[in-house]
């Protein structure tokens, strides 16, 4: 794990500027910002671990815990809510058997509530990984997730 000190300390007037971007990159490489990862960042940048931990836990896109292979970002803000998001979310919770914030036992999905995805014109909406789905109904949402499961099973069958 190589952390360039320059990347964070920068030069002159702009120290720390890219700490957030650095943490994002570390998360991409390691899956999450575990205690081990954060300790190394602290050691190599000279920033206090407490400060780094503070940043790592402040932002939604940064996570200190491992996530499932597919992160489901489900929007329940008002524009989705008035178009039936609650029923869709209930169906997903029942289908996956986990509550928002939790990961399925097979490690495939992590269900997360998110703030507005800017997809309100096709509300209710969710993202699964980088894929966008709109105009959801309980049935449609379950079919989408079932699709991921099937694909996963097939990949395993062939490997």
């Amino acid at each position, binding site marked *: 794990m190589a952390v360039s000190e320059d990347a964070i300390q920068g030069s002159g*007037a702009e120290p720390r500027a890219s700490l*957030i971007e650095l943490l994002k990159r570390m998360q991409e490489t390691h899956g999450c910002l575990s205690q081990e990862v954060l300790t190394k960042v602290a050691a190599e940048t000279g920033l206090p671990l407490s400060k780094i931990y503070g940043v790592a836990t402040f932002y*939604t896109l940064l996570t200190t815990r491992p996530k499932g292979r597919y992160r489901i970002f489900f929007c329940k803000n*008002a524009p989705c809510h008035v178009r039936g998001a609650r029923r869709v979310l209930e169906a997903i919770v029942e289908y996956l058997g986990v509550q928002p914030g939790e990961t399925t036992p097979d490690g495939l999905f992590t269900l997360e509530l998110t*703030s*507005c995805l800017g997809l*309100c*014109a096709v*509300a209710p909406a969710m993202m699964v990984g980088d894929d966008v789905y709109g105009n959801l109904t309980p049935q449609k949402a379950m079919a989408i997730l079932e699709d991921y499961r099937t694909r996963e099973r097939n990949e395993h069958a062939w490997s």
Partner: protein
Amino acid sequence: MSMRGPKRHLLIPIDPYTLSKGAERVKAALDKALALSNLTDTVRVVETGTVGHHEHGVLLIVYPDGVVYGDVTVDNIPQIVREHLQENRVVEGLVVRDVRIGPFDTRARRVEKQVRLVLRNVGLIDPESIEDYIAHEGYEAAARALTSLSPEQVLETVKASGIQGRGGAGFPTGVKWSFAAREKAPQKYIVCNADEGEPGTFKDRLILEGDPHSVLEGMLLAGYAVGATKGYVYIRGEYRMSIARMRKAIDQARSKGLLGRNILGSGFDFDVEVREGAGAYICGEETALLESMEGKRGEPRNKPPFPPQAGLWGMPTVVNNVETLANIPLIVKNGASWYRQFGTPTCPGTKVFTLVGNIVSPGLIEVPMGITLREVIFDIGHGIPRGRGFLFAQTGGTTGGILAAGELDVPMAYDTLRQVGSGLGSGALLVVDDSNCVVDLVQNFVEFFNHESCGKCTLCREGTGRLLEILHRLTSGQGDPRDIDLIRRLSVNMKRAAFCGLGQAAPTPILGALQRFEEIFREHAESHTCRAGVCRMRAEVAA
């Protein structure tokens, strides 16, 4: 007149909606069909930004014919290529009539009421081509300013235009700039606030993705006016496409000498970088944004000093919204009095709105300031679907005020909405039909604030949590008549004493709803009933 190059352009708007409807597959099929028909020399396919109409699926616009095809699938491609492109016959069955892009003719009410200044190029040009932007008079304002206007003249023009910041607060842009201009400092900054997180708002994303150079040109002009040589675009981390497009636009501008050192030989230096957000609504607050840019938790700063005096790294910094900046090139190019012909005397210009919720035609619109809510909902948005009635509208996103049926004719502008306890905010316009329950929705708003409170001040951190508890009691049939008064007192105190805009604005929709629908709150609190049947009352279950 002989014509070189392509005779026709086929525009495909690419945005999250069209992508989810298969726009990429349609484009691939089109490329293939054009190659097979030997049309690649005369027809150019252009991926554009959104046109703001999301009810027509994948669109295909034939230019210069001005024909707009809607709900296009891969299967339609051979027919369109054969009949329209080869035989010059419009495929009538696929034409949609209420979409307007750029100069095209239109017959629908939806578009007659729109005035597209900020969105002038969105959907019309290839956002990844600086040449396209330049061909549509792009960078003309910058060239004129840098070669024949003084920074003071640019500043005066923006001041005289009367434009107010489009991020939510509506502070006069020229006045903000003048604060930074008068500071003496070794370094000043222009920051474009593209950390759009307000529920219901996606206008900035579609401006960034549809016309990134207009934002860059606005930043360049701002830098020239206030004496800043460095700019940052702070973009919400979730907006992958916006980030990529803006980075590309910056590279192109740099390679053309429109960013960097000694721009157009004027002696003026200005460069721009993208900074990615990491998911925190509070970072849209300008001082929290600056903290985040410095690599810290995005918690708001004490004001004063305000950013134009001491912002990023303590240096004078102008923070402007995407839409504000996209207006600037037009104002500088055409002058303040030209700009003032749009909108109202106290609130000039246009406003980009996202129309969401229970509405027939949701999407992105641009209208002159002063248009009424009724016109927007019923003429442009085509009303409320499934024959339901209008309950209320919320202007300005989740922090915005509530307008009931009696207020449909209030003109939409900063000053007029303020008079009814609302605001334009970020431009989200949420329409709610009467199948919804106002108490349940207020609980939804508060869940959002509670999640997004940064935790710095007690009033917001604890206040949103307490409000949520009380509202949960009301919506689950365990309310108490005293709860109404508790909500009101807590909200008033938060509004008065919270540290930053988030905590101060959070009570706006709560108090607005309580003022207009108090009897519905009372029903929940006293008789444990929900007339809309949305809240699941324990009392009902027991009965």
